[in-house]
């Protein structure tokens, strides 16, 4: 499955607000796009046409929202089967999700809640990853999420993530901005944190902006430009990683496409500098 995951390059999150602009790009185009399957599954009409045009123009990676891998609830097998159909239809080779939960008591919350960093949660999630991979017939890639408070933790975040990767064999989506946000919010050193992750398992990288809402709190909004300290952390991490796809996320306060192209160029230059001896 490793071979299937390898889609190197710099990508851009595909959102409705910028869909037409992204499809129309003639220069500075992303190497791939990433979209949330839940926002496009079963969609006909205007948005169905937009999706077809986008998937004809770009390779597609999918980043899910509602799988809820860390939930106490049972996996939603109907949803998984629909998801597989969508991934197959659009020839999506890389599917990632969040290491969090978004559904509980049979009710979706549509946001990412922090999983207790505990050994039983590790085993629970590792079992579910196997099921998901079997149904989707794809390797699962899980993202380290931003969290604003630990909840009933019995281990630290890096141990939790590493344990899940080791136990399940899943791949890691390394969100550099989330590392920065968590390090700021929980007052630890982001480089030490990064060094303690299973970096050989990183299959994909996310970069994004955030918003500081209090002197001691950053919220992961994807609504601002990527800031310099996050670029620096990205540059620091790259030599420790295999060449993998890098995605720029921008979900709110979407600027002119030229600004996003500029940010993608920044990422491309940094990745090229770090991985110049390998294909990027």
């Amino acid at each position, binding site marked *: 499955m490793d071979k299937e995951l390898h889609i190197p390059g710099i990508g851009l999150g595909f959102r409705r607000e910028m869909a037409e602009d992204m499809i129309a790009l003639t220069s500075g185009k992303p190497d791939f796009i990433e979209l949330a399957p839940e926002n496009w599954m*079963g969609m006909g009409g205007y948005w169905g046409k937009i999706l077809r045009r986008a998937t004809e123009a770009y390779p597609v990676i999918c980043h899910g*929202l509602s799988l809820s891998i860390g939930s106490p609830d049972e996996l939603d097998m109907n949803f998984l089967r629909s998801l597989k159909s969508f991934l197959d239809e659009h020839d999506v080779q890389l599917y990632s999700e969040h290491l969090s939960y978004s559904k509980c008591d049979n009710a979706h919350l549509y946001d990412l809640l922090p999983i207790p960093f505990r050994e039983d949660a590790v085993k629970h999630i590792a079992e579910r990853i196997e099921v998901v991979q079997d149904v989707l017939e794809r390797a699962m890639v899980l993202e380290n999420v931003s969290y*604003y408070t630990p909840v009933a933790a019995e281990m630290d975040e890096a141990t939790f993530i590493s344990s899940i990767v080791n136990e399940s064999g899943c791949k890691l989506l390394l969100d550099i901005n989330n590392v920065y946000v968590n390090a700021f919010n929980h007052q630890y050193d982001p480089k030490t944190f990064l060094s303690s992750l299973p970096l050989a398992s990183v299959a994909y990288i996310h970069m994004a902006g955030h918003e500081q809402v209090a002197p001691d709190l950053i*919220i992961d909004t994807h609504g601002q430009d990527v800031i310099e300290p996050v670029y620096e952390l990205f540059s620091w991490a790259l030599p420790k990683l295999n060449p993998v796809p890098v995605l720029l996320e921008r979900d709110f306060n979407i600027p002119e496409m030229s600004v996003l192209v500029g940010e993608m160029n920044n990422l491309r230059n940094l990745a090229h500098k770090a991985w110049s001896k390998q294909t990027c």
Partner: protein
Amino acid sequence: MEQTDVLKQNTSSIQGALARYCREGAAIDLPGITPGRLEHYRRLVLNVVHGILSEAYPIAARCLGSSKWGELVEQFFANHKCHNPQVWLMARELLDFIEETAYHEAKGLPFLPDLLLMEWTEIEVHSMPDNTTPPSTPCPDSQLLSTHLVFNPHYKLLHLSYPVHRIHLDDFEPKPGNFFLLVFREEKSGKVQFVSLSPYFATLLDTVLQSEGIDVLGAKNALVEAGIHAPKSIHEPQLVYFLKSLQDKQFIFGKVA
């Protein structure tokens, strides 16, 4: 809640408590949390829900005003278990909640289910999966009544009890009645059109659409057999005019090529 073998009851309970706090807002005491941070989770969760519902139902949100609308959204999210993993489809569940709880009756908003249904139908028709139709050619007026017509497959026919399609936000005290609305998606642009129909035209159109291979005269005769007669003011010229207008609007694509 289903339990797996490996997830301990205590962990599951903590996760459930956090989720319930986000939905309902009642204060909780969880172990190992950073003071003042849980509130952000509820705020972020509600931001998503408010955003989706306000975008889906802009007329209802304005009609109710921010206070009543905000109360409805939070009541819905606290008391209804949203089952759809696709967040845009969560908006449909607001309508389910209203109907299941009779919220509109308790709040003196009898028109609310119809208003939400009309707004939801616009989303549904705009996004419904693409269907194909047989090749067609424009149908001459002289053949509209007696030819097998090809209809736009992306539509809904609504029967409303309040005239929410004629809503005026500044002065809205609708009187109940029988109102029919054809909602369909333009083939080329993907835009959604609304066409107000008289009860007879709505019934006739519904009969044609529900009966495979029937022409309009056949549907008219079937209605007569069922005891439903055209109003005295409606004769063949009016029927032809009605069908021609639907062809002009591209709800009728034409006749089978």
